[in-house]
C-alpha cells in the first residue's frame, strides 16, 4: 500500500516546526526585531501561490475573477518581500561592534 502524499507533507511540516523551534531559540534577543521583519519577508513566499493563481487564466482573457485575486496577492506579497528584506538589511547594517575605526 502506498503512503498518502499528505503524510509526507505533514512530516515535513512537523519537522520544520522543530527546526524552527531550535533555530529561533538560538537567535540573540537583541536581534528579535530583525527576526520579525525577516520572518515577515520569508512568509511572503506565499507569492508562489499568487503567481499560480494569476497565471491560471487562459491567454485570451488574462483577467478573470479568480486571476485578479492572484494579481492583487502578488502585489501584496511583493510589498512584503522587498519591504521586509530591505528593512532587515537596513537594521542589520546598524549593528556594530565597539570602537571600530576609532
Amino acid at each position, binding site marked *: 500500500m502506498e503512503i498518502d*502524499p499528505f503524510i509526507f*507533507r505533514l512530516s515535513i*511540516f*512537523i519537522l*520544520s516546526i522543530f*527546526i524552527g*523551534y531550535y*533555530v*529561533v*531559540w*538560538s*537567535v540573540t*534577543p*537583541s*536581534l*528579535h*526585531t*530583525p*527576526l*520579525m*521583519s*525577516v*520572518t*515577515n*519577508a*520569508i*512568509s*511572503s*513566499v*506565499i507569492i*508562489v*501561490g*499568487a503567481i*499560480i*493563481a494569476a*497565471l491560471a487564466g487562459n*491567454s485570451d482573457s488574462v483577467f*478573470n*475573477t*479568480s*486571476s485578479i*485575486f492572484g494579481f*492583487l*496577492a502578488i*502585489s*501584496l*506579497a*511583493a*510589498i512584503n*518581500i*522587498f*519591504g521586509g*528584506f*530591505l*528593512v532587515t538589511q537596513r*537594521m*542589520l547594517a*546598524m*549593528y556594530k*561592534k565597539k570602537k571600530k575605526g576609532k
Partner: protein
Amino acid sequence: MISVNLSAIFYLVSGVLFILALRGLSSPETSRQGNFFGIMGMIIAITVTFLSIGNFSIGFIYVLIFLLIGGLIGAFIAYKIPMTAMPELVAGFHSLVGLAAVFVAISAFLNPEAFNLGTSGNIKLGSLIEMSIGAAVGAITFSGSIIAFLKLQGIMSGSPITFKGQHPLNALILIAIVILTYLLCSTQSSNLFWILLVTSFLIGFLLIIPIGGADMPVVISMLNSYSGWAAAGIGFTLENTALIITGALVGSSGAILSYIMCKGMNRSFFNVILGGFGATEQSANLSSKEQRPVKSGNAEDAAFLMKNASSVIIVPGYGMAVAQAQHALREMVDTLKKNDIKVSYAIHPVAGRMPGHMNVLLAEANVPYDEVFELEEINNDFANADVAFVIGANDVTNPVAKTDPQSPIYGMPVLDVEKCKSVLFVKRSLSPGYAGIDNDLFYKENTLMLFADAKKMTEDITKNI
C-alpha cells in the same frame, strides 16, 4: 517547463535557505549573510514557479508589472520608515501576508482546476479543509494586524476596549467558524466560504481590540505566528514544500517570541489575550494613594551626579522611542565615556512595543551592541553601579514586582535599579505606567526625578557635564 520533481527539489532548497536565514540571526556578525540567504531562497522560489508554469505569454508580463508595483512600494517604505516606527511597520506587513493568503485561497476556491484541486463545486476534501484553515487564519491575521497597526500608530486609542459579554461573544464566533468550516467542507457551498471569511475578519478584529498598548509585544509576536500558520495552510493546499517549511518556521518563531514576551511580564498567554489589563486598577490606585514627597532635580544636578560616578547603567524604555531620544542619549554617553565613566545599557525583554525594539533604536544611534545587555546579564551589576539612568521606562523597574504580592505585576522580572547608589528618572510626570501601578522607586531616598521631555533633558545634561 521543468518537471514537477525538479521544481519540488528547488522548493526544498529555498526552504533550507530560509532556515539558514533565521540561523544567521544567532549573532550580529552572521546576520547579514543570513538575510542574503533569505533573499536567495525567495529568488529561487519565484523563478522555479515561473519555470514550472512555463507560460511566458501576456499574463507573465502582467505578473511582472504587479510584482514591480508591490516591490517599489515595499522598497520605498523600507527606506523611508524611521526606526521608531518599526512596530507599526511589522504589524502592517503582517496584515499584508494575511490578506495575500486570503486572496490566494479565494482564487483557489474559485478556480480549483488551476491548482489541481478538483473542479469547482467538487474540490478534494483535504484541499478544501486546508484552504479553509489557511483562509480563516489569514483573515484573522489581516484584521488583527490592522487593529494592532492602528493602535500603534495612535490612530486608535491604545487603551483596551472592553464591553460586556465580550468573551462569550468571541467564544461563540470561534465555535461558529469551526461549524462553518465543517459545513463548507460537506456542502462545498461558495456562500459558506464567504461567510467563513467575513466571520474570520470579525474575530480577528474582536480579539485584538481589548488588548492594551503595552501588551503589543505579545500581540505582534502572536500575529507573526498566525501569518506563518496561514502560509503553511496555503502551502498544504498548493502542495508546496517551500511554503510548508516557511510557514512552520515563521509559526514557531512567532510562538516563541510570544512566550518570551509573556514571560517578561510574568503573565500567561491567555491572560494577555483575554485583555483588559490595566483598565480597572488605575482608578482604585489613584484614589487610595496619599501624596508622597519626591525629590526632583534639573539637568545640572543630574550632570553633577553622573560626572562623579565611575559607572552608569542606562535603562531605556518606550518613552525613549516616543521622544526620539536615542541619538541624544548616545551623545550623552559619549561625553560620559570621555570622562572615563563606564557606561552600559540594560534592556528589559518587554521594553518598547515589540521584541528587540530598544536594541534596534540603540543600534540606530550607533551604540555598539556589546555595550547592550539583557536583564539576566546585567541585573547583578546594579548593586555595584553608581548611577542608573532610567529614560522612558517605568514598570520594568518597579520594585513592587518583588515585594508586594497584591500588585498586578507581582512576579514580573524587573531590573534591580533601586540597588544603585542613585537613580535618575527621566519622565514627563509622576503618572503611573500602563499597568496603573505607582512606582515605589519615585519616592526612594536615592531617586532624583527629572521631569522633562526625554530628548531635551538628555541634551541639557550633556551640556552640563
